[in-house]
């Protein structure tokens, strides 16, 4: 009798799981996932195209690697130079801009480096370095990390020469925000991750709005010439949908705490 019960239970465990007819995989960045936009788009995709998109949430660096290895069918990331190199090396067929959001500077509400009075992102960083205020860097080769490094470069500063106040944690956006919260440190974050972050502690949004902080997301299908198992037909369908008016409406109307996160800027197909 007991055995029968157990077998039934095991059978039930095994009977779970059913999928849409078409399944494809896409690597996306943590910041995109943290925005909650995926939860809006994926169900609509399933409804409109009967397409299940499985998301691998990683940093931009790893997303590109997944595309190079052919372990995903497409990637959605935000690091223009790396993306162009990806297409140039033949790993992706092309790069299609979809939307942008922006990066923001987060820091302790006491704001020892005085970021809230700054005009530009470069000035903000120079102030942080001058005050030697504790700073947390993703340090994980992600799009956000690459953005941060290029900003330091614009400010004529070299993170390699910084003292102990500069902490490269080598972690995703959420984990890095957790660290910053614990250390009362400054950090560069995408707006979505910040708004959705549940452990703000004493941190506050101190600087934003500089056009240099705009963060362009692009869609890159993996090249089927390199990996013949890639589902090119599905990535085509997905690209058409992501650049359609329907997607525009969903993306532009997505908000957290009343704040708009993304601006749709895909160009219609030629």
């Amino acid at each position, binding site marked *: 009798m*007991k055995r029968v019960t157990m077998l039934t239970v095991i059978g*039930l465990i095994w009977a*779970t799981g059913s999928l849409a007819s078409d399944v494809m*995989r896409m690597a996306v960045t*943590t910041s995109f996932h943290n925005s909650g936009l995926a939860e809006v788009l994926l169900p609509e995709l399933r409804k409109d195209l009967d397409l299940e998109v*499985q998301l691998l949430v990683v940093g931009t660096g790893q997303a590109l690697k997944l595309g*190079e290895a052919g*372990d995903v069918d497409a990637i959605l990331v935000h690091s223009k130079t790396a993306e162009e190199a990806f297409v140039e090396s033949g790993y992706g067929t092309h790069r299609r801009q979809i939307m942008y959001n922006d990066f923001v500077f987060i820091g302790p509400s006491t704001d020892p480096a005085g970021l809230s009075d700054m005009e530009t992102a470069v000035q903000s960083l120079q102030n942080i370095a001058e005050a030697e205020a504790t700073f947390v860097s993703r340090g994980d080769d992600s799009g956000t990390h690459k953005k941060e490094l290029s900003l330091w470069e614009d400010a004529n500063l070299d993170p390699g020469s910084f003292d102990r106040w500069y902490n490269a944690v080598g972690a995703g956006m959420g984990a890095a925000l*957790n660290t910053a919260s614990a250390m009362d440190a400054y950090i560069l974050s995408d707006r979505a991750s910040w708004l959705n972050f549940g452990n703000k502690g004493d941190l506050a949004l101190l600087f934003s709005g500089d056009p240099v902080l705009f963060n362009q997301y692009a869609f890159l299908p993996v090249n089927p010439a390199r990996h013949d*198992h890639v589902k090119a037909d599905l990535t085509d369908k997905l690209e058409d949908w992501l650049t359609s008016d329907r997607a525009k409406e969903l993306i532009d109307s997505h908000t957290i705490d009343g704040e708009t996160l993304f601006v749709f800027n895909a160009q219609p197909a030629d």
Partner: protein
Amino acid sequence: MVELWDGLAQAFWLVVTADSELVEIALRSLQVTLTALLVACLIAMPLAALLAVSRFRLRRVVIATLNALMGLPPVVVGLIVYVILSRSGPLGVLALLFTPTAMIIAQVIIVVPLIASIAHQSLRDLWQEYHDLLISMNVTQTQKMQTLLWDARRALLTATLAGFGRAIGEVGAIMIVGGNIDNATRVLTTAIALETGKGEFALALALGFVLIALTLLVNLCIHWLGKTEREGRW
């Protein structure tokens, strides 16, 4: 501290309302780990019995290796399995990366040394007890192994439960090879890692409590099953 209570309360509501997402990832956790455990036992138990009853040249090396592999860092296992199963890796054509099967493979590799080592210890002790009798009865090698495995089944249950504990609570390897894909490869531990990353400590804790409860439940079930044969204490 506040988060701890929030977590408990949230865990309570998730369970009481049978939150569909929770049920799904909890079932997937069980599905992956129980399958991995079954496969691991089918490998580890005969191996442990063989190591107990036979004397071949590399026996000590194998035992030492198994003992060392018990402490194998799951992340390393995950990486190795990842590289092998990647489309660009040697077994890429199987298209197993980022599937539950890949997670099962990683967990099998992680728990086989543990189960085999613990099982071997108890089988070795039993073999010392049985050695003279079984040799005298002229039983075959296979029969020796069968006899040891059957008569030591209670100790083997402990080994299995240890393996279950290690597998169900593992996150490093299955995160890498499973990819933590919603609706496909997300299990309790990777969901906890995800929520922690978002700073959602209360929800992460809630999932943690559910994981602990599930582990307890499975342990109790297995013990209850083991008691179906009333043979007293051995």
